[in-house]
């Protein structure tokens, strides 16, 4: 079973607040899924390269040229809070 502290550590990395109930449920559920997933540990994978892309692909680069993008007011239109010309967020020091 995954330790409570480990759940809290991972939640912090994931920027996720969890309720007491969620922490408890997560311990059990993550442990169960990881038990199943651990079966890949039994395979002999020595010398097997990790997959990066499964379909052959070449020439994904394009010329790096400036071009128009979303107008500022459109990009800001869906934001929960804006100030002048930018996204407004709480102070990190608050």
């Amino acid at each position, binding site marked *: 079973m995954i330790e409570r502290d480990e759940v809290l550590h991972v939640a912090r990395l994931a*920027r996720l607040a*969890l309720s007491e109930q969620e922490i408890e449920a997560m311990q059990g559920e993550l442990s169960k899924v990881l038990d199943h997933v651990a079966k890949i540990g039994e395979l002999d994978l020595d010398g097997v390269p*990790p997959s990066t892309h*499964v379909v052959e692909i070449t020439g994904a680069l394009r010329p790096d040229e400036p071009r128009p993008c979303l107008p500022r007011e459109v990009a800001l239109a*869906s934001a929960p809070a804006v100030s002048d010309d930018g996204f407004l967020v709480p102070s990190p020091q*608050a």
Partner: protein
Amino acid sequence: MSESQIIALSATEAAAAVIAGELDERELYGVYHRRAREHGGSDALNCFTWVSELSEPGGAPQRPLGGVPLAVKDLFCTKDVPSQSGSKILEGYRPPYTATAVSKLQQAGATMLAKTNQDEFAMGSSNESSAFGPVRNPWDRGRVPGGSSGGSAAAVAAGLAPWALGTDTGGSIRQPAALCGIVGLKPTYGAVSRYGMIAFASSLDQAGPLTRNVADAALMLRHMVGQDEADATSLAFPEPISVPDGVRLDGVRLGVATQLSAESEGAGGIEPGVAAAFEATLKLAQELGASIKTIELPHAPHALAAYYVLAPAECSSNLARFDGVRYGLRAEPGGEDGERGLLGMYTRTRHDGFGAEVKRRIMLGTYALSAGYYDAYYGRAQRVRTKIAEDFKTAFQDVDFIVTPTSATVAFELGALTDDPWAMYMNDYFTVPMSLAGIPAISIPCGLAGDGLGPGGNGLPVGFQIAGPAFSENRVMQAAHALEAAIGFDSAAAFA
């Protein structure tokens, strides 16, 4: 034409009738618009999250898709139309641009009818993780439609939309298509641009059609494929998508993998009715001229484990963008973790905005990528993925296609698997290997199973999956078309 005549038309037939002047585009749209409003809401099938306010289309009847109405999975960004990916964190979000797959279909003459309900961020196999409530299966409203493209599958099966656009990461087009008795195609990875799809697992996500028949799937796919400057992983399709007309399977070699058949213990038990429908379809294929060969995909039993490392890992990264800053929900600091300020806003927003399954996958993925565990989980899973792709390549030297049941079971009851995440994940057992290998696969309805279930107690739909090598869509659909004609599946029982 009467309403019942109109809804009896496939999308291909409807487009042809409009183009030939036999059917008014506005009449076609009006029929589906009324049906979508009447049967698609939360008091009925709950398959739509939005239905167009337009009572008349502004379409283009002379284009190849003849103005035929299209339902689009919620996670496609559609300009000024709610695009919420089934999540509370994006409730009411109206994007400033449209996904390439959708705009290409619109340019070809499709008319946007509705957005379809789905599992939250496409994470689920039953549509029960949607923030907008579960979709109901039109064959039995007490059962799930499958997921994550459950709304798209239910809408097409119930005749509320002629066809629908979905996405498939580990089976999210094929499994709901199977459980709802329709056709679902997951194209080769890269065949269709992912630009404007709200990402779940970027190395696996792929858009594709959910349709009443194979010809409709081909027609939709023809107008979706192609390289897109906005998606660097998209590829030019090497040939035009043709209209399938196959009726025979002479010389076609079908592979049945030991690891993906009733003999495999890893499959978690194929229901007897599903196994029987699958076997009957193999017999039909032989009668049409196909040969059946047993093949080995040695690493397929490990596909699900690898997938449930890789997909959550990618999701944990992709969903980092939902932080209450640029769009969607924002909650004030004050979570139970005691964080304040900016960090508190992030953690509280994500706590309030994400549902249980999405949180679980973010946690799994973050765990698998975290220091000390990366090599054991993510690194190993990527090596397993290499082996799985190699297994398929080897198998395709001996056979043209690999066939499996799409799902081990027929549609299950709402709530049956929600308490056991791994049991829910097992729904993807037969579909995940193809996703990891990036190859195309189609599910077609091959019969009914389950004594006493479904309309008239005749059973619930079973799906037959056909997978081929990368970019073999034309051949896959040709074979699927021949089988479809021989099976003669009748989907009318599911019409609302």
